[in-house]
């Protein structure tokens, strides 16, 4: 599971930055990336973020796993745009009687979308690799994300690991009994696995609520209290976003 390989490098300066400031800066740059027409700004943001990831000493395997899916989607979109969008031809060839033509406008549009995806993924990678989940939840709460949503997020995050462990035990038991030997058995076993996970979820929810009510739970979980902002962090972040905005306009 990629979860366990999630690295939070406490030595890096970004890790010490207030999560609320990081979240606001991330969202601001994300908006700039999404609204930028072209590729230069995207490439600059990508280079900056990848450099920070390298400085945070993120293992290559974790890094590649995180980027593998977006890169695959980038390839699909590039192909779709190059061969199906535009009017001015770059090259044309015939394969098995089918005329295949690559278009200049499609290539330009494809590259713009591809750079936008990679830049957006890079920003999120820096944010995630430098912020613990609990701080991220507190920052979301500060951004006025409804408390009910944050609570569900907390329960889900806590119990994903428990349920994965339960799923592993059931999966091993099914596998030892040849539950995955044929295709039919495989699908039947997956159905039973999912059903068993839901049964486990019901059991766990009953147990937690009993335990929490005994400790004074009244339907709402208190969240982390926010520390006051550090002025230097806010000013530097503001200057950074302004500089990025200036580059975005160019």
């Amino acid at each position: 599971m990629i979860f366990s390989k999630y690295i939070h490098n406490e030595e890096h300066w970004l890790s010490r930055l207030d999560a609320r400031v990081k979240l606001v800066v991330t969202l601001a740059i994300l908006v700039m990336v999404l609204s930028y027409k072209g590729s230069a700004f995207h490439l600059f943001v990508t280079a900056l973020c990848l450099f920070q990831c390298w400085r945070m000493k993120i293992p290559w395997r974790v890094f590649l796993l995180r980027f593998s899916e977006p890169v695959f989607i980038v390839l699909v979109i590039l192909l779709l745009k190059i061969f199906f969008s535009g009017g001015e031809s770059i090259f044309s060839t015939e394969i098995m009687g089918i005329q295949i033509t690559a278009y200049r406008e499609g290539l330009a549009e494809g590259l713009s979308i591809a750079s936008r995806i990679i830049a957006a993924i890079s920003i999120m990678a820096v944010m995630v690799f430098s912020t613990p989940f609990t701080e991220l939840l507190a920052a979301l709460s500060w951004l006025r994300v409804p408390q009910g949503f944050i609570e569900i997020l907390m329960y889900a995050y806590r119990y994903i690991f428990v349920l994965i462990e339960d799923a592993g035990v059931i999966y091993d038991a099914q596998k030892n009994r040849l539950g995955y030997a044929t295709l039919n058995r495989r699908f039947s076993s997956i159905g039973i696995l999912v059903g068993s996970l839901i049964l486990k979820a019901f059991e766990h929810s009953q147990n937690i609520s009993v335990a929490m009510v005994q400790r004074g739970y009244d339907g709402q979980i208190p969240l982390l209290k926010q520390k006051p902002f550090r002025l230097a962090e806010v000013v530097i972040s503001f200057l950074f976003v302004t500089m990025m905005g200036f580059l975005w306009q160019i």
Partner: protein
Amino acid sequence: MNNSPIKISLIALFSVGALLSAQDAYAMHISEGILPLNWAALWFALAIPFVAYGLYSLNRRSRNDLSFKPLAGLMAAVVFIISCMPIPIPFAGTCSHPCGTGISGILVGPAISVVIAAVALLIQAIFLAHGGLSTLGADIVSMGVMGSFAGYFTFRILLSLRMGIAVSGFMAGLFADWATYLMTSVELASGIKGGAAFLPLFYKILIAFIPTQLPLGILEGAITAGMVMLLYKKRPDILVKMHVIKPGDVAMGKQGMTALIVAFFIFGGALSAAIPAEAAKWTGVDEAVIEKVAKEHGREAKAPLIDKEQGDLLLFLFLAAGAIGGFAAGYYWRALVAEKRTRVDDKKEAMMEDK
């Protein structure tokens, strides 16, 4: 752009299919950065009312039942795990993942299921780069809203038609998956079309998804039916508590079974009607060789005992079926007419006796 639409679609299908087979397909989630700002904002604007109503429903239900919020959190964890589960797609030679929102839609209702999907999607976007923060709105609309509502309403409608839990669960999983993939195609096409027309790109993306999502929908239907049936067998009280079934509902309704049998016969009839038309062009080995040789040696074939060419065979079969069916119905009339007891009834009775 001289290629015909069919040729273009074929190229799209094979090129994307080749890429899909190179890696596990995570087709349901729109990756970070794919949608430009205006489209990302539009999908967020569409998703927010559903999430807000879901949170309202969640708070209302958790006021009466303090275990409901933990349950919703755990359901989000289950949806997270299900939508990370690689399922083999033998027809496409690749793996894809089910949505899981049809299942949560059936169990906790579509409104709360949207919140559950949103939570699962946010965790996936943060930790696995599976989806994204900017595309969260679009992903919530396709997986959360479309998946949950399609699954829930399909299940409720079929159950109200007394199709049985298994058939209703299967169809709910199937339509939840297909509705999600249909919406994802709309979102992708609108987001990446640029200056091009929407519809041709939409069709290309739709066709490109078919090799994985078409069989996956059927498999998700089977998994959903399996899950509902497991709950029905092991813990029917949970299904009753979550208002999924009433105590009298049965796993395979009479109408559901009848519909399946009728569908089987219609399919079989259509197949057999198609086959003779083709087979008439090709005489079999009996007629072409054996009968010919036998005739040459003076041993001509006799008329068959039951000659299909004479009399009305179809009418005879209908009459025979009516007689057998009438006998069976008369013999087992108690089983057909009398109210059927379920495990839930037994459990309730046992609880009453304990009290």
